[in-house]
C-alpha cells in the first residue's frame, strides 16, 4: 500500500514507461518547471502546445533545455485546448494537461460531445490524494474542484472514482467516509439522506469494493479517539482513506486548509475521462504539480 506521494512517484518510476503528455497553452513557468522534472526523471514525454517563442523564453529563464519538449504552435487558448484533446483522442498522447488556459475553456474542449474526451454518460469530477504529516496515510478527497452541489448520482460517481484511484495505490477495499456535520441521519438534510442511500447500496454491492459509512463528521472519519469518545459504531473507525464531501464549498476550503496550514501536498486528477486529464490551480506548488503528472501516469 502506498502511504506517501513519494512512494507513489517511486512506483510510477518503476513502471519505466514514458507517457505522452499534451499540454494546452503551455507557456506557464510553473507548468514547464513541473514538466521538465517529469521528463528528466523519465516519467513522460511532453508536447507543449502554445506560443513556441514564449515557451523558449521561459525555458531560458528557468535553465531548462527546450529540446526535451516537442513544441506545437497554436494561435489561441481554445485552439490549443482542442489540439491537446485531439492528440489524446487520436492516441498520440496518453495524458492531457492544462497550461495557462482558463479551466472553463479547457474543460469545454474536454467535454465536447464529438471531439472531447468524456466516457459516454460519465460524470466529470475530480479526486485528489493529499499527504499531510498529521495523518498516517494519504487522504483521498472528492470533489474539491468540479461539482458544486453533487446530487445522488454524482456522489455515487465521486465514490466510484475515488475508490478506483485508491485501489491504484494498493488499497483493495478503501474506507470511504461520507462527510457531514454530524453522524445522524435527518430527512431535513439532503446529504444525510443521500449518504444513507449510498451506504445501503454499498451493503448490497451496488457500489463495490469499499467500506462505506456516513454521514460522519471529520473526527469520526479520521480520529480513532473521537470514535471512542462518541461511542459511534462505524466500520471507518477513524481510519478513512477517502473523504467524500457534500459540496464544493466544503471540500475546497478543506483541501486548501490542508495545503496552507497542515503542510499538505497533493496529487489530483479529473475523472470521467477516457484518458487522464490534469487541471491544477496556479497557486499549487511545483511539487504538487509534479505529483499530479506522476499520478496521471499511475492512472493511465
Amino acid at each position, binding site marked *: 500500500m502506498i502511504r506517501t506521494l513519494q512512494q507513489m512517484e517511486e512506483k510510477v518510476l518503476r513502471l519505466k514507461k514514458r507517457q505522452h503528455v499534451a499540454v494546452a497553452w503551455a507557456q506557464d513557468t510553473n507548468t514547464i518547471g513541473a514538466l521538465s522534472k517529469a521528463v528528466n526523471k523519465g516519467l513522460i514525454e511532453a508536447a507543449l502546445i502554445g506560443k513556441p517563442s514564449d515557451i523558449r523564453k521561459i525555458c531560458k529563464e528557468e535553465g531548462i533545455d527546450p529540446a526535451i519538449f516537442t513544441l506545437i504552435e497554436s494561435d489561441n487558448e481554445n485552439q490549443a485546448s482542442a489540439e491537446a484533446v485531439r492528440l489524446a483522442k487520436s492516441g498520440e498522447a496518453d495524458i492531457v494537461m492544462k497550461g495557462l488556459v482558463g479551466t472553463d475553456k479547457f474543460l469545454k474542449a474536454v467535454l465536447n460531445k464529438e471531439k472531447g474526451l468524456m466516457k459516454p454518460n460519465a460524470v466529470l469530477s475530480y479526486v485528489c490524494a493529499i499527504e499531510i504529516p498529521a495523518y498516517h496515510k494519504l487522504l483521498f478527497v472528492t470533489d474539491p474542484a468540479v461539482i458544486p452541489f453533487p446530487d*445522488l*448520482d454524482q456522489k455515487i460517481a465521486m465514490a466510484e472514482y475515488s475508490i478506483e484511484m485508491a485501489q491504484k495505490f494498493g488499497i483493495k477495499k478503501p474506507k470511504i467516509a461520507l462527510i457531514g456535520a454530524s*453522524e*445522524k*441521519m435527518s*430527512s431535513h438534510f439532503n446529504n*444525510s*439522506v443521500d*449518504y*444513507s*442511500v449510498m*451506504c*445501503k*447500496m454499498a*451493503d*448490497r*454491492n*451496488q457500489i463495490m469494493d469499499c467500506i462505506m459509512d456516513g454521514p460522519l463528521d471529520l473526527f469520526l472519519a479520521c480520529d480513532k479517539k473521537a470514535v471512542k469518545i462518541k461511542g*459511534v*459504531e462505524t466500520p471507518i473507525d477513524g481510519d478513512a482513506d477517502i473523504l467524500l464531501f457534500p459540496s464544493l464549498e466544503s471540500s475546497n476550503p478543506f483541501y486548501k486548509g490542508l495545503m496552507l496550514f497542515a503542510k499538505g501536498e497533493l496529487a489530483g486528477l479529473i475523472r470521467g475521462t477516457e484518458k487522464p486529464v490534469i487541471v491544477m490551480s496556479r497557486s499549487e506548488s511545483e511539487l504538487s504539480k509534479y505529483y499530479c503528472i506522476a499520478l496521471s501516469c499511475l492512472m493511465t
Partner: protein
Amino acid sequence: MVLKNMNDLRRLIDVGLRRKLVLAAAQDQHSLGAVIKAWKENIIEPIFVGDKDEIEKICESFNYDITGIRIIHEPNTEKSVETAVKLVSSEQADILMKGKIGSATLLRCVLNKEWGLRTGNLLSHFALFEVDTYPKVIAVTDVAMNIAPSLQDKIAIVNNSVSCLNRLGYKMPKVAVLGAVEMVNENMKATLDAALLSKMNQRDQIKNCLIDGPLAFDNAVSLESSMLKGIKSEVAGDTDLLLMPDIEVGNVLYKSLVFFAKAKVASIILGASVPIVLTSRSDSEQAKFDSILLAAAASK
C-alpha cells in the same frame, strides 16, 4: 425470546394480574364469544358496556354464562364507546375492544383530546401471523391503518411495533423493511426509505431493534433466498417484523397469508395508551380470541 406460535403468548400472561378488557358496544355475538372464551381461560377480566338487554339476550341464546361479569348499561352505541374509553383513561381498564360499532367512531373517541387515549404517538396496526411454513410467528405492520406512510410515519410505526415486541419478550427484534427488490432503486421510494431507516437504526436513532432493508419478501423470510442473492444481513431469513411500504401491499399480504397460507392472525392497534382490539366483522372468532390474547400479553 421468540414466539413460536400464538399459544406462546399465554406464557406472557400473568394469571394473578388479569388485565381488564372493556368491550365497547358489547352487543355483538362474535366479540362476546371471543371475550367470554378468553375470560374462561383466565386471560382477561371483561367489562361489557352496551345495551344490557341485548347482551343478555345474545348470551342466553348462545349459552354463554356471564355470571360475575360487570355490565354497564348504555343503549346508545356512541355513548357506550365514550364510557368504555373513559374507563380506560381513568385506569379502570387495561385493554379497549371494539364491539358492534364502526371503527371510525371508536377511533374518534380514542383520539378525543379531553378523555381519549392519545399519547402523542401515531396510531398503527400491528398484526401477528402464525404460518406452518415459518419457524416462528411473524409480525407485520401496517396492513390496515396508515395508508401511505411518510418516512416520519414509518419511524413511528416501527417504534410502536418494536416497543410492543419488546414487551412480548423480544430484546432486539429483527425488522425487515420490505421492498420489491433488495437493491436501492431511486425510482422506488420504499427502497430509499428502507435505506434511511437502516441508517437511523445504525446510528441509534431508532433503538432496541435491528433494521435492514430494502429486502424483498423472499429475502426477508428465507435464509436460502437471501444467501442465493449474496445478501449480507443479520435480518434476512430471520425476520421478526415486516414493515410494509404502504397499506395496499400490506393488506394484500395480510389477506393472502390468511386465505392462501391458512395463517392464524392476531392484531391490535398500537400508539394509544393501551392496546386496542379492533378486529373486523369478517375476522374469525379464533382471530378475535388471539387478538385479545395478544393485547393482554402486550399490555404494560
